Each structure stands twice: as C-alpha cells, then as structure tokens.
C-alpha cells in the first residue's frame, strides 16, 4: 500500500528532516517528494511506500499527528488510491 503524506504550514528549518526521520524509523520508504513555498507558506507532498513498515497504519498516523503538533504544521497521511479513483475516469 502506498500513502500520500501532505504537510502544510508556515515554513521553518528542518521540516523534511523531522518527517523523513520519523518515516525512516518505521521503515516507510519515501518514493517521491514535491514541495512548494509560497509567501512563507510551506506545502509538501510525499509519496510513501507503506508495505514494509514496522508498525500499523494507525500507529504511524498517531506518531505523525504528534510530530505535527511538535513542529506546528498540519500533517496528513492518506491511502494513495483515493486520489486515483477520484480523478481518473
């Protein structure tokens, strides 16, 4: 299963480091990253392979929620297939 991780918030140092370290600690492999910064507003989208993770989806989500609060950003992780289905005929 692949997941889409979205991080939205005010730009600051080390956002990617925080999130990628956390993902690595659960063996979640980052496949692609796309980020933009517009007027101090940071938006990043990551495609993550969740097949080899050493925990379950819910726990990973909880850890990301905790991290989001810590670095004062909004972080969401969702299954990738929802986006494919919604936008492809």
């Amino acid at each position, binding site marked *: 299963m692949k997941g889409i991780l979205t991080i939205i918030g005010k730009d600051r140092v080390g956002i990617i480091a925080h999130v990628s370290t956390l993902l690595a600690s659960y063996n979640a492999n980052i496949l692609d990253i*796309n980020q*933009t910064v517009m007027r101090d507003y940071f938006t990043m989208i990551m495609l993550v392979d969740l097949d080899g993770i050493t925990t379950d989806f819910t726990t990973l989500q909880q850890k990301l929620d905790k991290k989001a609060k810590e670095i004062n950003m909004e972080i969401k992780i*969702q*299954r990738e297939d929802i986006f494919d289905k919604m*936008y492809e005929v």
Partner: protein
Amino acid sequence: MIKSKNILETVKMVDELKFDIRTITMGISLLDCADSNGEKSRIKIYDKIARLSENFVKTVEATEKEFGIPIINKRISVTPISIIAGASNDTDYIKYAEILDKAADVAGVNFLGGFSALVHKGFTKGDEILIRSIPQALAVTNKVCASVNVATTKAGINMDAVRLMGEVIKEAAYLTRDKDSIGCAKLVVFANAVEDNPFMAGAFHGTGESETCLSVGVSGPGVVKNALEQVRGQDFTTVCETIKKTAFKITRAGEVVAKEVSRRLDIPFGIMDLSLAPTPEVGDSIARILEEIGLEACGAHGTTAALALLNDAVKKGGIMASSNVGGLSGAFIPVSEDEGMIEAVNRGSLNIEKLEAMTCVCSVGLDMIAIPGDTKSSTISAIIADECAIGVINQKSTAVRLIPVYGKTLGDTAEFGGLLGRAPIMKVSSFSSDDFIARGGRIPAPIHSFKN
C-alpha cells in the same frame, strides 16, 4: 507521480468544505427472526443484529482514518418490522422497538431504521398494529426510526393510511412534547419508498435485498457550492458541467471507502446513494447552492429550476462514477437540517407552498418542517396526500416528515439538536381539509402506471 493539484484539492474538500461520507448503513434481513412467540422473535432479532454488527463501527472508523475522508454516521436498517412482528400474537410492537434500540446501542450506531410498514395498497394485521405502536415506540426509544409507505405509482394512494398517519404524527408529537415533539423527526411517510435507502429516518432493508449489505450516502454541499463560486456569471451549461464533475469526485471517494469497508467486513456492497445531504452547520447547505446559482434567497422564483438542474447534474456525475447507484439519489431539502433553509424561512423567502413545488424535482419531500402544534390531523393528512400525489404521478419517491411542535406556534422555533437541527415554525393553510380526508378508500393508480 505526485499530482499535487488533485491532492491539495481533496485535502481542502475535507478540511475546509466539509466533504464527508454522510452515512454507511448496514442493511440486515430479519426475515428469519419471525416467530409466533414475540419474546423468542425479539431474542433472535437482538442476537442477529449484535452478531452481524459486532465489528461494523470499528471497521468503518479504521477505514475512514486510512483514507482521510470522514464518515459521519454509522447506521443499521432492518426488514420492515411489521412483517416480522406480524407472525407473533402480540397486540402492540413497542417491545420490538425497545429491543431494536438496545441492539443499536450495543452496535454503537446512531440510528436504526426499519420500524416500518408498507401499506400502499392495504393493511395486514401486523401493519396496523405497527402503525398504531409508532407514537409510543418513538417516545420510549432514542435511536429507532419509523417509516410508512402509503402510496406507490403502481398501487395508488391508500387514503385510509394517509388519514391514520395524520393522527399518528399528532400523537407522536404529543408523547414527545417535552422535547419539542422530536418523535416526529424520527418518522417518515413515503410514497414510492425505496428498499435500499441508507438515509434516516426512512431507511429500511427491503425484502428484495440480500441477507446483509452496505449502502452508502455521500455528501458534499460545501464542495459543490465552492466549485460553483469559481464559475460565477457563466452560463447554465457551465454550471451543470461543474456540478457533474464535482459529483463524480465525491461519489468516487465514497465508493472507494465503502468497497474497502465491504471487503473487510465481508458484507456485500449494496448501493451508493447520490444525495446531497445538508447539515445545520454553516457551509453545508443546499439552500446556499441554490443561492449561488443566482437567487437572492432560497425560495425566490427560479428556485425550483435551480434545484431541478442541481438534482439532475448530481445524478449524471454520480452515475458516471459508480455502477451501483440506488437509494433516493437526489438533493435533500430538509428545513431544520439546513442552515440556509432556516435563514430563508426566517427571511420570509421560503414557505411551505414553495417547498412543495421544490419536492416535484428532487428526491424527497416536505422534510423536517416544523408546523404549529395545534395543526389538525386532517390538515397533516392532506399535506401527506398532496406529496403522495406528486410522487405517484411523477413516478418518484416523496416523503413527509412534519413536526407539529406541541405548544408552539408561528414565531417560535423548535430545537432538536445535532444533525436534526432547529426549525422555525412554518405556516400551513388554515382552511379545512376535513371532508377530503374523511372519505377514506384509495386513490387509484394513475393511467401511466399501466405499462405492461
């Protein structure tokens, strides 16, 4: 490849525009729970619901987290209880309602529908007992919803049932008078009721359905309104196209999530109901969509046309997105559950006559409308008859959910709380329909129903 635009749009739909899956409803057949001994029947009913729904709520919650799309309500619908309880020798079915309420509590769902009877052509013994039990059943339970189908295009309108339902609604209002007659908010009178409707209060699991199934109602008035804000001033072709595309996306999202829940529970996926359903929250209103199409206030001339195009475009987009469309599928226009409708009534732009016209072009009828508590039962029956005529002649479902709020009158507001919202009391005609309702009998099926 990451398609940022699509991903961020979806995130915005959920975070800002209140996109959600309004309900996942598990239909459960209780046909094998009938017994001549009422007590035994109720034990079977409780055991079956408890067994089948054991993992329902937690599975739905786990799935919603993975997809990041909120699923607001988890509900159960069952076989019309008049059919099951009719096998027993009981003389009222209130204990059946109580056991359903208990089963709903244990399952963790917020409503259970199916305290129902289908009497469009006539009453069985069980139908009549059930209907007479409705007021008390709704007063002593919290989660049980009742519905009665009194008309179909094929059978015509059972005017004896229409008369009886006027009296039942009045009694339900009286028995729940301490809570603004909330019992009536859990009671729908239908014409052309569908067997696979996932929405309350009218959900029941029809006898043509499988043993169990999951039916899903998506929502997203806020998403549609936002999309229309981007095409302000453009022509109607653009408006319809925009609604279609939006309906496609929200239907697809609903279907993906529902199919995953179905797979995990090993319960067949039934249908997607393409209804746009509002909530009392700001930004989740059908009335505001109609206003966005170009009306100063919902109820202004043009409202019926705007609702017709909205209803049609939602279906076209949704049908392209899913091969399993069913239920009511259309826009809902409940007054108390829609912030924009409430304001329209308070501004004086929307009245019951205009709402009646609107019900000709959308999927339900006069829904969640509070009327003066001293409205006569014959007037309520006559309103039901009018809505049935619209449904029967136009070969569509219509429904009536009126709340004659005990002790309240014009200028007052009824407060129901939660998704049921609040409703300003609306004016009904003061002229009598007594003699019309006193006739009884059946209004025959219309000529165009004879298609064979």
